[in-house]
C-alpha cells in the first residue's frame, strides 16, 4: 500500500498527483506548481527531475504535455478505496497570489479585493476578525449613545406629550378665560345698558308726568282765568288777583324759560369698543399661535446624530464628528423627520411656521417627506449606500489633508465595487435609521450558527469567515473614521513632536530660568515692600518661597508676628502690615473664608469650602458657641427686630449703589471694630492663656496666618499687589465704586471704632485728636434708641452682607444671604443687648485653633454669630487676660487673623477702601482690645503706655510725617507705586513668552487640543486637555503635577471637556462639553458631583464651553449653543441665566468663555458677535466693546477671556491669533502675538487665564500647548 501510495505521489511536491502530466521520458509530475517550476523558459525546455532528460515544451506550455490518464485513474481508484476526500483544489488552476506572489490555488478575498492564496486569505480574515472585534468594542462603548438617545427620545416623547397637553390646557384655559371675559363683559354691558335705560326711562317718565301735570294745571288755570277774567265775575278780590297774576306771570316765565334739554335724553348710548371689532375678532380668532421652539428641532436632530458620530467622537475627533453630523443631519432629518416630527407638522397647521432659518429645513422636510421617505427606505439597498457615499466623501474631505489611505479608505474602496453582500438580503431586519442589518437575521449567519452549533464544521470555519466580508457594510461608517483618524493623528503627532522637540526643550530651558528669576525678583521686591515698615523680619521671609504672591502675603503676617514680640512701641507698624494682609483676606469678601479660617488652624492654605459645607462644618466645630448665640438671640426680647432689619437692609440695598453715607460707614465700622477687638482678644486670649511666651504664640499663630493669607490669595486674584496696595494710605482705589473721600471717614471711624465704639460708653473721647468726627457720629449712633440701634446694626450688617457681594443687589445672592442676614441681624441684637449672656459662655473655647476654627466658621456662616461669639470670647479674655495684657497687645498681630477674618466677612469688598486704614486699624486691635476689655469689665484697664502707643500709631497713620510713620508711609507708598504701576506696565511689557507647556500627545504634560485653562488657588495651572479627555494640573512653573479624567460619560469621565475653573477652595469645575454637564472635582481630582444634561431648560446645557467661578463660588457657564450664560451655586443649583441668541445688547451668539472680576463684573466673549460683553451678576449689560476686525480693539471670534485683580481684561482674539489686553473700562491697552508655531505665536486660541502674579496663560490650541507670558 505504501508503495502504491508512493506511486501516486509526485516526486517534486511529495504530494498526491494533481493533474499529472506525462513527460516524454514517461515520468509524471503535477502540472502545477511542480512541472511549471521546472520550466527553463529561456531554452523552452523542461528537465525531468528523475532522469534529467530534457524535453521541449509544447507550444501551449506544460499544459501541452499529455495528462497521465492512467495515473489519474489510479488516483481516483485510490480515493475510492481509501475513502479520502477529494482534493478540493482539483480542477482549479493555480495562480499567483496577489499578496505573497506565491503560486497557489487562489480565491477571491473580499478584504483586499484580490485573488490571493489560502494563507494570505487566512491572515486577512484574521485581520478582519480583529478589526471587527475592535470595532465591536467601539460600538459597545458607543452604543450608550443610542441608548441615551433612546432615553432621550422617550423623554422627548413624554415631554412632547406633556408639552402638548400643557399647551392645550393653556389653550383651553385661554379659551375659558376669553369666553368668560367675553361673557362677563357682555353681561356687564347688557346690565349697564339696562340700568342706563331704566334710569333714563324713569327720569323721562317722571318728566313726562310732571309735564303733563304742569300742562293740565296751566290749562285749568288758563280756563279759569278765561272764564273769570272775561266774565267779570267779581269773585276774586284783589289779593287773589294779585296772587293769580303772580301765578300767571310765573307760568309765563316758566313756559318761556322752560326748555327741555333734549340733548340730555337724545344722547344715544353707543357701544364703544376699545379695539376695532374686526381686529378684536381677528385677535381672538388668532389669539394664539403655536410656535415650535427651534431647540426642539436642533435637539431632535442633535439627538439623532449620536449613532453615527458617537463612535467617532469616542475617538476624540470632534471636528470630524461635527462635520459628519452636519452632513448627516440632512439625511437624518429627511429620513427621520417624517416619523418623529409628525406631531409638529400637525402643530404647524395650527399656527404659523416659526420664522427661523430652520423653517426651510422643516418645510423642506415636510414637503418632501413622502418622497424622501420612499427614497430612503422603500428602496432597500439604496439608503445605506448613499449614506456610505456621503460618508466616503466626508472622510475624504477630512482626511485629504492628513494621511495616506488606510484601512478606512480600503473600506471605502470596497464599497465602490458592487460586492455581493451576503448578509444583506431582504429578509433581514434593518435598522430603520442606519440601515444596518441585523446580523442574526441574516439567513447565512443563521445557517452558519446552526452549523456551528451542530458542530459539523470546525469552529474556525464557521461564522467568523463570512462576517469579515459583510462587516464593512454592516458598520460602514464607523470603522473608517477611527482608522483614518488614528493614523492621521499619530502621524500628526509624530510630525509635531519632531517639530516641537527641538523648540520646546530649548524654550523650556530658556524660559524657565527666566521665569524663575522674575519670580525671584518679584519675590524680593515684595519682600522689601512688606517688611519695610519693620526691617527686622527679613530672614524669616526669605525662608518661605513658594510663589512670589504667596510669599508676599505670607510674609506680611509672619513678619509682623516675629517682629511683634520684640517691639511693642512699633506695634502700629506691625499691625499695619498684618493689617494689610488681613485686609487682603477681608477683601476677598468670601463667606467661604470662614471655612478656610477653620482650616486655617490646621495650616492648610486652601481647604476652604463652600458655604454649605461651611455651614455643616460650623455645625460641627461650632456647636457650642453657635447654639449659644442662637439661644441668646432667641432670648433677646426683640424678636421682631430681625425683620425690620431685614427690610431696612433692603432699603439700604437700594441705596448702597451710591457710596454709603458716612454715618453708615461708621456704624459698620463700629460694629466691626468691636468685632475686631473682640476677635483680637480672642486670639490673644487663646494664645496668651496658653503661654505668655510670645514666640510660641507666634508659632502657633503662624499656621492660621499663613492659611489666612492663602485664603486671601484664594479669595481673588488680587494678591500681593493688593496687599501692598492696601498698606498705602494714599491708595484710594475702591473696588466697589466707593469714592475716595470715604476712606478718610472710614479711617477715622474704623481706626477708632475698635476703641471708640466702646469708648463712647467709656467716655474717653479725648484720647485721640481726631476722634471728634467719629465721636460725633458714634454719639449720634449711641443716642439712638436701643431699638433703632439694633435696627441699625442689623442694617449695617445687612449692608455688610450686601457689600460682601459688591453687587449685593443681585437677587439670588440676596436670597441666598437672607438666612444669613437674619441670623446676623439677630446676633447683632445680641451684640447690642446680651453681652452678659455671651460672656459666660465664651470660655468654652480654650484651644486657640479650635477657637479660631469655630470662629471662622461662625464668621463665614453669619457674622452675627461671629459677633456674639467673638464678643463673648473677648469678654472672657478680657477677664482672663487683663493681667497679661502687655503680652496680649503684642499678640494683637496674631489676633488679627481672626479679626481680619471677621472684617472680611463683614466688609467684604470695602476693604480695598479701608486698606488705607490698615495702619490705623492695625493698631485698633490693641486699643480696641483693651477698650473692649474695659467695656466688658467696666474697668479702665488700659495701660497708659499702651494707649500712648496706639495713639501714636494712629497718629502716624494719620500721615503726620513724623519719623516712624514716614518710614511706614514711604514703604507703603513704594508698595503702592509698584502695585499701581505693575499691572499696566507689566502688560505693556508682555510679548515675550516666559515658557510654554506641552506638545501634542496624550502622555502626561502633552495635550491634544487643549481648551480651557485656569489658575488654581495655589497658582497651579489647570488645563482642559480636551481631546485627551482629561484635566492636567501643572505647578506655576509648568511642571506636571497631576492629571485626572478619561474618556466617557460616567463620573469623572469627560467627553471633550472645554472650560475649567478652580474655585477658591481648589475644587476643579469642568465644563464637560459633549456630555453637556458640569463636573466638580475636589482638589485632589476626585469626582464630587456633576450636574446638567443636554437641553435648553434651566440648568441644562448645549455644549457648555467656558466656565468660571466667582469669589463666592458661584459657577458661571457659557452655554454655548444655547447662547446664554447660566449661573449656579457651587452645589449645582441653578441660580440664574442671561443672554439669548442675537446680536443686540445683552444678547449673545456662541458665547465661549467667561470670566468674573473680583468686582463681580462678568466678562463674556460673545464670540460670533466679535465682542466682549460685560454684565453684572444679574445679567444686566454694563458695557461691551469690540467689533469685527483686526485693528486694535477689534476681534475676530474672540474666545478666552480673563480678568485680573485690577480689572484688566485679557482676550484671546482667536481669529486674529493674538492676545489683547484692555483696561478695565474696555479701552485697548495692547496686543501681542500672531499666527504661527513659534514662541509667542498662536494657532487657534482658546482659553486664557491670568495668574495673580500677572502672568498670562494662553491656550494655544492647534499648537497643543500652553504659553505663558
Amino acid at each position, binding site marked *: 500500500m505504501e508503495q502504491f501510495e508512493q506511486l501516486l505521489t509526485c516526486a517534486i511536491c511529495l*504530494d498526491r498527483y494533481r493533474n499529472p502530466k506525462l513527460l516524454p521520458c514517461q515520468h509524471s509530475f503535477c502540472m502545477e506548481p511542480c512541472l511549471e517550476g521546472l520550466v527553463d523558459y529561456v531554452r523552452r525546455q523542461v528537465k525531468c527531475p528523475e532522469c534529467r532528460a530534457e524535453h521541449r515544451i509544447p507550444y501551449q506550455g506544460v499544459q501541452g504535455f499529455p495528462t497521465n490518464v492512467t495515473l489519474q485513474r489510479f488516483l481516483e481508484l485510490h480515493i475510492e478505496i481509501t475513502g479520502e476526500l477529494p482534493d478540493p483544489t482539483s480542477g482549479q488552476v493555480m495562480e499567483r497570489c496577489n499578496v505573497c506572489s506565491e503560486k497557489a490555488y487562489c480565491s477571491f478575498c473580499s478584504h483586499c479585493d484580490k485573488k490571493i492564496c489560502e494563507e494570505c486569505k487566512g491572515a486577512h480574515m484574521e485581520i478582519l476578525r480583529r478589526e471587527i472585534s475592535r470595532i465591536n468594542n467601539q460600538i459597545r462603548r458607543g452604543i450608550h449613545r443610542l441608548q441615551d438617545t433612546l432615553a432621550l427620545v422617550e423623554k422627548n416623547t413624554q415631554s412632547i406629550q406633556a408639552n402638548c397637553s400643557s399647551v392645550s390646557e393653556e389653550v383651553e384655559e385661554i379659551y375659558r378665560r376669553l369666553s368668560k371675559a367675553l361673557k362677563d363683559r357682555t353681561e356687564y354691558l347688557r346690565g349697564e345698558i339696562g340700568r342706563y335705560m331704566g334710569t333714563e326711562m324713569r327720569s323721562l317718565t317722571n318728566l313726562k308726568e310732571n309735564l303733563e301735570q304742569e300742562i293740565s294745571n296751566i290749562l285749568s288755570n288758563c280756563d279759569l282765568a278765561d272764564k273769570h277774567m272775561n266774565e267779570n265775575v267779581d269773585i276774586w278780590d284783589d289779593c287773589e288777583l294779585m296772587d293769580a297774576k303772580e301765578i300767571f306771570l310765573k307760568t309765563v316765565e316758566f313756559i318761556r324759560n322752560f326748555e327741555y334739554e333734549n340733548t340730555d335724553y337724545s344722547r344715544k348710548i353707543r357701544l364703544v369698543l376699545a379695539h376695532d371689532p374686526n381686529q378684536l375678532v381677528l385677535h381672538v380668532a388668532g389669539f394664539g399661535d403655536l410656535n415650535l421652539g427651534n431647540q426642539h428641532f436642533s435637539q431632535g436632530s442633535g439627538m439623532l446624530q449620536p449613532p453615527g458620530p458617537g463612535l467617532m467622537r469616542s475617538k476624540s475627533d470632534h471636528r470630524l464628528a461635527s462635520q459628519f453630523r452636519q452632513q448627516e443631519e440632512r439625511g437624518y432629518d429627511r429620513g427621520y423627520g417624517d416619523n418623529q416630527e409628525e406631531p409638529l407638522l400637525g402643530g404647524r397647521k395650527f399656527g404659523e411656521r416659526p420664522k427661523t432659518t430652520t423653517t426651510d429645513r422643516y418645510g423642506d422636510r415636510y414637503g418632501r417627506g413622502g418622497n424622501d421617505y420612499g427614497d430612503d427606505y422603500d428602496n432597500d439597498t439604496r439608503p445605506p449606500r448613499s449614506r456610505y457615499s456621503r460618508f466616503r466623501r466626508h472622510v475624504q474631505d477630512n482626511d485629504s489633508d492628513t494621511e495616506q489611505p488606510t484601512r478606512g479608505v480600503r473600506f471605502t474602496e470596497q464599497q465602490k465595487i458592487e460586492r455581493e453582500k451576503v448578509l444583506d438580503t431582504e429578509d433581514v431586519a434593518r435598522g430603520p435609521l442606519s440601515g444596518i442589518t441585523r446580523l442574526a437575521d441574516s439567513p447565512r449567519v443563521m445557517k452558519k450558527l446552526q452549523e456551528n452549533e451542530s458542530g459539523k464544521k470546525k469552529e474556525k470555519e464557521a461564522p467568523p469567515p463570512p462576517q469579515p466580508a459583510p462587516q464593512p457594510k454592516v458598520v460602514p461608517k464607523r470603522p473608517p473614521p477611527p482608522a483614518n483618524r488614528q493614523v492621521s493623528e499619530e502621524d500628526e503627532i509624530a510630525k509635531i513632536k519632531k517639530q516641537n522637540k527641538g523648540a520646546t526643550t530649548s524654550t523650556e530651558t530658556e524660559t524657565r530660568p527666566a521665569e524663575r528669576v522674575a519670580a525671584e525678583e518679584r519675590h524680593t521686591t515684595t519682600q522689601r515692600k512688606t517688611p519695610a515698615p519693620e526691617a527686622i523680619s527679613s530672614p524669616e521671609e526669605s525662608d518661605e518661597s513658594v510663589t512670589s504672591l504667596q510669599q508676599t502675603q505670607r510674609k506680611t503676617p509672619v513678619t509682623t508676628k516675629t517682629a511683634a514680640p520684640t517691639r511693642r512701641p512699633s506695634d502700629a507698624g506691625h499691625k499695619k502690615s498684618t493689617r494689610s494682609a488681613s485686609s487682603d483676606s477681608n477683601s476677598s469678601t468670601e463667606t467661604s473664608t470662614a471655612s478656610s479660617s477653620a482650616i486655617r488652624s490646621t495650616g492648610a492654605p486652601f481647604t476652604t469650602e463652600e458655604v454649605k459645607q461651611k455651614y455643616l462644618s460650623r455645625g460641627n466645630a461650632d456647636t457650642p458657641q453657635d447654639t449659644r448665640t442662637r439661644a441668646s438671640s432667641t432670648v433677646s426680647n426683640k424678636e421682631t427686630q430681625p425683620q425690620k432689619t431685614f427690610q431696612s437692609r433692603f432699603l439700604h440695598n437700594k441705596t448702597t449703589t451710591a457710596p454709603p453715607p458716612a454715618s453708615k460707614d461708621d456704624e459698620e465700622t463700629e460694629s466691626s471694630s468691636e468685632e475686631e477687638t473682640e476677635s483680637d482678644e480672642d486670639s490673644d486670649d487663646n494664645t496668651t492663656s496658653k503661654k505668655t511666651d510670645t514666640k510660641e504664640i507666634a508659632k502657633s499663630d503662624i499656621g492660621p496666618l499663613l492659611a489666612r493669607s492663602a485664603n486671601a490669595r484664594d479669595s481673588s486674584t488680587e494678591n500681593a499687589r493688593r496687599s501692598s496696595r492696601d498698606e498705602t494710605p494714599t491708595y484710594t482705589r475702591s473696588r466697589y465704586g466707593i469714592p475716595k473721600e470715604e476712606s478718610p471717614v472710614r479711617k477715622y471711624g474704623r481706626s477708632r471704632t475698635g476703641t471708640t465704639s466702646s469708648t463712647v460708653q467709656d467716655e474717653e473721647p479725648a484720647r485721640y485728636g481726631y476722634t471728634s468726627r467719629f465721636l460725633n457720629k458714634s454719639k449720634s449712633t449711641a443716642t439712638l434708641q436701643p431699638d433703632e440701634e439694633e435696627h441699625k446694626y442689623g442694617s449695617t450688617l445687612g449692608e455688610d452682607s450686601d457689600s460682601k457681594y459688591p453687587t449685593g443687589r443681585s437677587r439670588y445672592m440676596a436670597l441666598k444671604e437672607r438666612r444669613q442676614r437674619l441670623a446676623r441681624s439677630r446676633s447683632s441684637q445680641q451684640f447690642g443687648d446680651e453681652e452678659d449672656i455671651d460672656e459666660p459662655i465664651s470660655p468654652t473655647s480654650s484651644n486657640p485653633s479650635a477657637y479660631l476654627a469655630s470662629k471662622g466658621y461662625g464668621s463665614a456662616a453669619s457674622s452675627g454669630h461671629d459677633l456674639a461669639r467673638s464678643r463673648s470670647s473677648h469678654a472672657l479674655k478680657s477677664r482672663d487676660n487683663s493681667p497679661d495684657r502687655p503680652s496680649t497687645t503684642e499678640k494683637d498681630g496674631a489676633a488679627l487673623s481672626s479679626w481680619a477674618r471677621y472684617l472680611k466677612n463683614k466688609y467684604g469688598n470695602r476693604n480695598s477702601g479701608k486698606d488705607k486704614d490698615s495702619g490705623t486699624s492695625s493698631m485698633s486691635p490693641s486699643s480696641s482690645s483693651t477698650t473692649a476689655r474695659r467695656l466688658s469689665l467696666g474697668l479702665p484697664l488700659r495701660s497708659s503706655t499702651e494707649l500712648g502707643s496706639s495713639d501714636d500709631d494712629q497718629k502716624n497713620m494719620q500721615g503726620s510725617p513724623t519719623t516712624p510713620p514716614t518710614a511706614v508711609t514711604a514703604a507703603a507708598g513704594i508698595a503702592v507705586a509698584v502695585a499701581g504701576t505693575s499691572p499696566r506696565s507689566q502688560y505693556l511689557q508682555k510679548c515675550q513668552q516666559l515658557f510654554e507647556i506641552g506638545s501634542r500627545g496624550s502622555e502626561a504634560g502633552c495635550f491634544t487640543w487643549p481648551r480651557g485653562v485656569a489658575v488654581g488657588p495655589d497658582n497651579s495651572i489647570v488645563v482642559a486637555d480636551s481631546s485627551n479627555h482629561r484635566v492636567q494640573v501643572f505647578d506655576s512653573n509648568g511642571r506636571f503635577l497631576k492629571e485626572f479624567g478619561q474618556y466617557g460619560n460616567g463620573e469623572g469621565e469627560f467627553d471633550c471637556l472645554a472650560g475649567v475653573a478652580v474655585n477658591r477652595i481648589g475644587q476643579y469645575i469642568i465644563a464637560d462639553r459633549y456630555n453637556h454637564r458640569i463636573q466638580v472635582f475636589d482638589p485632589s481630582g476626585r469626582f464630587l458631583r456633576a450636574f446638567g444634561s443636554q437641553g435648553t431648560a434651566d440648568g441644562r446645557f448645549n455644549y457648555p464651553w467656558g466656565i468660571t467661578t466667582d469669589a463666592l463660588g458661584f459657577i458661571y457657564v457659557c452655554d454655548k449653543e444655547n447662547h446664554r450664560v447660566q449661573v449656579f451655586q457651587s452645589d449645582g443649583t441653578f441660580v440664574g441665566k442671561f443672554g439669548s441668541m442675537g446680536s443686540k445688547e445683552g444678547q449673545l451668539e456662541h458665547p465661549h468663555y467667561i470670566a468674573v472680576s473680583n468686582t463681580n463684573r462678568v466678562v463674556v466673549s460673545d464670540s460670533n458677535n466679535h465682542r466682549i460683553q460685560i454684565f453684572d451678576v444679574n445679567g444686566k449689560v454694563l458695557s461691551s466693546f469690540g467689533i469685527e476686525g483686526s485693528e486694535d480693539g477689534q476681534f475676530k471670534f474672540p474666545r478666552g477671556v480673563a480678568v485680573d485683580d485690577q480689572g484688566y481684561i485679557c482676550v484671546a482674539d482667536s481669529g486674529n491669533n493674538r492676545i489683547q489686553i484692555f483696561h478695565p473700562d474696555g479701552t485697548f491697552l495692547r496686543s501681542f502675538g500672531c499666527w504661527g508655531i513659534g514662541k509667542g505665536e498662536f494657532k487657534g486660541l482658546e482659553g486664557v487665564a491670568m495668574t495673580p502674579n500677572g502672568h498670562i496663560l494662553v491656550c494655544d490650541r492647534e499648537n497643543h500647548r500652553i504659553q505663558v507670558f
Partner: protein
Amino acid sequence: MAALPRRIIKETQRLMQEPVPGISAVPDDSNARYFHVIVTGPEDSPFEGGLFKLELFLPEDYPMSAPKVRFITKIYHPNIDRLGRICLDILKDKWSPALQIRTVLLSIQALLSAPNPDDPLANDVAELWKVNESEAIRNAKEWTRRYAMDN
C-alpha cells in the same frame, strides 16, 4: 515569510519518522528551513567513527533549487574545503527537484566514502590524496579523530 510549503513539511515529517541510518536532520526551532544535520562517517572510510555536523538550508524556491549544505565539523576531504563547503554535483548543476534532503545527505555520506580528488575543492588535500593517498587517508583519520570524535 510565506508559510512552509507542504513538501518541506512532508520531508521533515518523514525525516523524523523514518530517519536514514547514520544521518540525523533536525529542523531548527526558529527556522523550519534550517536543519541541524549530523552524518556519521561511513564504514570502511577514513571518516569512520566520526560524527560530522552539517548545516542544511532550504532556499526559498526549494525544491526547484538545491539546498545549501555545509560541513561544520572540520574534515579532511578533497571535495570539502576548509570552510566546509561541499563540491557535489547534485548540490549544483545536477540538482533535481526529485531529490530530497535525505537523498542529498545520503549523497554526502557517499561522498565521504568515495572522495573524488579529480574534482577537488580543497586543492592541497586533493593533491595529497592523489600523490600519497595513504598519507591523505591518515590525515583524514587524524582529523576525524581530532575533530569529529569527542564531541
